């Protein structure tokens, strides 16, 4: 006896309920073609050098993590390549993403050697994104050059006020952490322009360019742990060095830096700080201001000023354990959804509907409310 049969031909790849919620994606990568991007470089001398055989991001070495992926470097384009606004809209429809916050994630840019050439790429990428995304009603995060704080401020002042520019995008890595005082003018400009700072892992440092990275040979070590380690270092550095006492309205989102380390950092920071806080007064910001202590417990800055993107979310199998871990990780306050489209670690918002760890309130916080708050949407 045969059974009732119907053909499935759905474009949707996530549960139908996802289409009923507002889904904001904090990490959606656009990949302009190189020649299209370089056409936007304004400085003739810079454009001339960027169009040599070395290309716009001539970094030494390679992305070793690609050895783990069947398709090698193609893993960065597992889902395709979005070049224009209509490409982004087509991709988002499959995954019920309502508001992608797109970035021109030239993620191997930080290690390019010449600051003038790097700044040329930043300028071109921001103008490309304004023309093809912000002007097409897609929320955009502008590139901010970490290596040149003075130019970073200039670029923020040039681009931030444009319609649909809702965030600044830069990178964390094994080099100077973001707690350093040299970034204060950048923080000041971001706060003045109501922009959160999105910090993404940098492919440039994978994995040859950090001391422990030299010995990391597998994808699991590098993506799984190298980036979260750098995230933790940057988070603690910013908090303990008083960034958020000086800039209490600054919000920072760490992208792809993991999230289950939050309970460890949360309790360990408070324990260490409360046990022996006497060196806080000799950190440069506190010393300059004549302050003795942080104004709040370290974990309170973590909860209020630091945000994390969820992708790739690796939940414990049991929903009870997952719920406990989410609570310990302050997910309701800190987590924001990200897809990482089109990379090999893509995370559609399926989890939030298939796991009983998420109640309606937590799901809404992660899928849109936390993002709305920091992006001021």
């Amino acid at each position: 006896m045969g059974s009732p049969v119907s053909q499935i031909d759905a474009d949707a790849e996530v549960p139908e309920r996802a289409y009923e919620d507002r889904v904001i994606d904090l990490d959606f990568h656009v990949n302009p073609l190189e020649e299209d991007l370089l056409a936007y470089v304004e400085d003739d001398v810079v454009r001339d050098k960027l169009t040599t055989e070395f290309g716009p991001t001539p970094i030494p070495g390679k992305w070793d993590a690609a050895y783990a992926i069947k398709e090698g470097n193609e893993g960065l384009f597992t889902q395709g390549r979005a070049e224009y606004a209509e490409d982004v809209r087509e991709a988002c429809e499959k995954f019920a993403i309502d508001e992608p916050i797109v970035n021109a994630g030239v993620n191997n840019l930080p290690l390019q050697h010449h600051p003038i050439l790097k700044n040329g790429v930043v300028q071109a990428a921001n103008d490309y994104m304004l023309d093809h995304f912000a002007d097409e009603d897609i929320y955009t995060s502008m590139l901010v050059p970490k290596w040149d704080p003075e130019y970073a401020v200039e670029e923020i002042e040039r681009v931030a006020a444009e319609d649909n520019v809702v965030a600044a995008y830069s990178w964390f890595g094994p080099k100077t952490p973001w707690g350093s005082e040299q970034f204060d003018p950048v923080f000041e400009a971001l706060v003045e322009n109501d922009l959160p700072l999105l910090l993404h892992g940098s492919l440039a440092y994978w994995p040859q360019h950090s001391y422990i990275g030299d010995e990391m040979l597998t994808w699991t070590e590098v993506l799984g742990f190298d980036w979260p380690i750098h995230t933790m270092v940057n988070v603690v550095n910013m908090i303990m060095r008083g960034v958020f006492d000086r800039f209490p309205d600054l919000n920072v989102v760490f992208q792809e830096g993991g999230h289950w380390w939050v309970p460890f950092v949360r309790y360990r920071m408070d324990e260490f700080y409360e046990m022996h806080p006497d060196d806080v007064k000799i950190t440069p910001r506190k010393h300059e201001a004549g302050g003795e202590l942080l104004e709040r417990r370290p974990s309170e800055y973590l909860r209020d000023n630091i945000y994390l993107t969820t992708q790739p979310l690796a939940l414990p199998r049991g929903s009870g354990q997952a719920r406990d871990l989410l609570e310990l990780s302050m997910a309701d306050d800190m987590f924001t959804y990200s897809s990482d489209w089109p990379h090999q670690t893509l995370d559609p918002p399926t989890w939030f509907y298939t796991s009983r760890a998420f109640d309606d309130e937590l799901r809404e916080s992660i899928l849109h409310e936390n993002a709305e708050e920091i992006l001021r949407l």
Partner: protein
Amino acid sequence: MSAKPEIDDGYSRVASVGEVPRGRGIAVDVDGIEIAVFNVEGEFHAISNRCPHQGAPLYKAGEKKINAEDTWTESRGGVNEDDLTVSCPWHLWELDIESGEHEVSGKCIGTFDAKVVDGEVFVRI
């Protein structure tokens, strides 16, 4: 599409041979069970439509990427005819199309009998 069920040893007609291009799949709901049916060099294989990793729809393996001409592999996952595997369109989990096994994780999804009669593809759950 909906089709009249075929009464023959529990097999149900799911498609005509010409409706499933070589190296691609379709998805059907057979009595509430989602099944992906792949054409592998003219042989038809039926496997659960949901990847055991994160529930991606497997039948989309081999779908053309956005701006595929600017990428290297052009498709989201796909069927490997030599190895008899299907790679998931989301994260490239490679599943044995005959056994439903994912070697690295040890996870396994259901597979189903499939046969072709007179140019029609039948599946038995």
